[in-house]
C-alpha cells in the first residue's frame, strides 16, 4: 500500500554493528501471528531487546537513550533468511525510514523497496567511517538524498553514492508501489496470460 514519499532524509543514526542479522532476529517467528499490519515495531529485535521476562536489556542499542534516529546502520549481510515482510514492517513501524549496510540479503532488500524503507548499500570502508563517527558523536547526522543517490556524513562532508534503479527511485520519491504499475498494464498481462 502507499507509503510516505522519500526525498531527503536527514537524521541521527542507530548503530548495530552485528553481521548476518537474519530476519528471525529482526522479528522472531512467534510474533508473526497477526492478520493485520499493525504494531510490529513493538517486537522489533525482540529477543535482543528484551529478556525472557520482557524487561529491556540495557546493553542493546534500541534501549540506549544515547542513540536515536530514522536511520539504522548495520553490519554486512543484513536481512538474511526468512522472506517475512514483517521484518521490514517492524523496522518501518518502529520509525526507521532507511537501513544502511555494506551488504543486504536479496529478498529483504526487495521487501524494503516495496513498502518504502530505503536500503542503502555502501562500501565496507564508508560503513566503518559512519560507525566510527556515530561512536564518537551519537548526535552526528547523516543525510540521504535519493535524487542525487548520495549519502553524506554532515559533520565532515564525507559522502558516497549509492545505487537504486530509476524505476524504484521514482516509486520511492512518489510513494508508489508496484501494484499501481501492474494494474495500469492489466491488458498487456491478460494478453500474455492468454498464451500460457
Amino acid at each position, binding site marked *: *500500500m502507499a507509503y510516505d514519499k522519500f526525498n531527503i532524509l536527514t537524521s541521527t543514526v542507530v548503530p548495530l554493528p552485528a553481521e548476518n542479522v537474519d530476519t528471525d532476529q529482526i522479528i522472531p517467528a512467534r510474533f508473526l501471528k497477526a492478520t493485520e499490519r499493525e504494531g510490529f515495531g513493538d517486537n522489533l529485535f525482540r*529477543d535482543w531487546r528484551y529478556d525472557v521476562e520482557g524487561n529491556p536489556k540495557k546493553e542493546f542499542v534500541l534501549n540506549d537513550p544515547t542513540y536515536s534516529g530514522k536511520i539504522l546502520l548495520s553490519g554486512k549481510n543484513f536481512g538474511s533468511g526468512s522472506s517475512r515482510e514483517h521484518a521490514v514492517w517492524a523496522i518501518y513501524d518502529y520509525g526507521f525510514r532507511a537501513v544502511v549496510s555494506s551488504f543486504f540479503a536479496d529478498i529483504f532488500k526487495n*521487501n524494503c523497496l516495496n513498502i518504502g524503507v530505503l536500503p542503502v548499500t555502501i562500501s565496507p570502508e564508508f560503513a566503518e567511517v559512519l560507525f566510527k563517527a556515530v561512536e564518537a558523536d551519537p548526535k552526528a547526522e547523516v543525510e540521504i538524498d535519493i535524487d542525487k543517490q548520495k549519502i553524506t556524513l554532515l559533520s565532515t562532508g564525507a559522502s558516497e553514492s549509492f545505487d537504486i534503479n*530509476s524505476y524504484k527511485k521514482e516509486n520511492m520519491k512518489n510513494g508508489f508501489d508496484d501494484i499501481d504499475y501492474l494494474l495500469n498494464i492489466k491488458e498487456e498481462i491478460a494478453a500474455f496470460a492468454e498464451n500460457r
Partner: protein
Amino acid sequence: MEKNTLFDKIWDSHVVRSVPNGPDVFFIDKHFIHEVTSPVAFLNLEKRGIGVLHPDRTVGTPDHNVPTVDQDKTIKDKLSRMQVEKLRENCKKYGIELHDLGSDHHGIVHVIGPELGITQPGMTIVCGDSHTSTHGAFGAIAFGIGTSEVEMVLATQCIMQTKAKKMRITIDGTLGAGVTSKDIILYIIAKISAAGATGYFVEYAGSAIRSLSMEARMTICNMSIEMGARGGLIAPDETTFAYLKGKQYAPKGEAWDKTVAYWKTLKTDEGAVFDKEYTFDGTDIEPMITYGTNPGMGIKIKGNIPTTEGMEGSNKISYLKSLEYMGFAPGEPIKGKKVDYVFVGSCTNGRIEDIRSVAAFVKGKQKAANITAWIVPGSREVEKMAHEEGLVKILEDAGFELRQPGCSACLAMNDDKIPSGKYAVSTSNRNFEGRQGPGARTLLASPLTVAAVAVTGVIADPREVF
C-alpha cells in the same frame, strides 16, 4: 546460435515486459499461499477494492503455525486459529484450492506441491516463504517473496523483479557411505558462506547431483536461500519425469508425452556462460553439521570448530558472539557433545525417504535416555506412508514421538519449541539464534546423523555408529 542457461530460458519466456532501467514484469505460473504471509495481502486487496485475477493459479495450505497434535480439534492458540481461519475464509471467498488441516493432502506447502504434481518443470513458482526454492529441484524457477508481492500475484499474476545473475555449482564424483544430499548442501554453504550466492540464481549440476532422487534434490534446492541465493534449480531428467508420472496434477495420456517432450528441452546449452561457477569433488564431502548461528557455519562432524586465526574486527566479534550463544569454544571437536533434542521434519527433510532412512538405522535400537526425539512428517501423505510401511512402529518402539504434519519445531511458531539453552540436532534449515525457540541452540544435520545422535545421545558420525 545463442547459448542460454536453463535459468535464462525459463525467466525470459515469462517476462511480460521489461521496464527501462528497472525490473521485469514477471509472470507467475503457480502461487502457493499459507496462513502467515497471506492475510495482509488479502486485506490490502480489499482496501483497494480488487479481486484475485487467476484463482486457479494459487493453492493454499496452513502449515507454519498449526499444532502438530490434536489437529482434529479447534486450535487452542487464538492468534494461530485466527490466521488459519482467515486463510480458509480468503480461499473460500476467492475460489482458491485449499488443502486444509486434516484433509488428505494437508502438509507443508513445499512438500505437498511436488507430491500432488502441481510443481512441474519450466514453471515459475512463488510463495511468501523463502524455502520456495525447493521446487527448483524440478527445473522450475521458484523463489520466496514478501507479502507485498503475494498481493501483486493475487491481483495481477505478476511481480516486478530484476533478473538475478547466474551461478552454476557442479559436483562430480561418487558420494561416500553415510553422505546424503543434506551433507552436500551444508558442505556447499560452508564453502561459499551464508551470503556467498546473494544476487544469484544457482543451477546445480554434475554426476553427484544427477544420481540423487527427487526428494534428495529438493533438500539441496530448498537450502539455496541459506547461501543468499534467490533460488536454485536442477535440470529435469528421467528421474524427474518418473517422479511426476501419474501424480494427481501431472498431465495424462497424450498430453503427458507432449509435455515430456517440452520438458526435455529444459537444460542449459553446452557453452552457455554463467556469471560465476564453482566445482566441488563429491568424494571430499563427508557427514556435516553446523556449530554456529548461520547455516554457513558448518564443518565435517569429525572436524573441529574453527579457531579465530585470521579473523579480525567485526567479523571476529560476530563469530565469538555466535559461539558464545551456542556454548562452544573455538578449536574444540564437535563430536561427543551432549544433545537434548532431535527433530526430524521440515520442508528440508520431512519427506518419506528421510523418515525411511531414520527408521532403517534406529530399527531395533533405543534412543538415548537424555534425548527427546520428535518426528514430524511433512504431509498427511508422508504420514500415511510411514504408517503403511511400518516405519511409525519402528520409530515409536525406539522411543521417538510421532507428531502430525506442519512446519513445527523448524521455526517454533506453534508449541513445538526447544527450551532455552538446550541443544537440538535438527534436519531443518536454519540454526539462527532462537529459531527453534528463544535461547534454543540448533545444529543442522542430515536425517542419518540425527538418527546417530538420537541413539548415542551425543553428536556422532553416522558412519561410526551403524
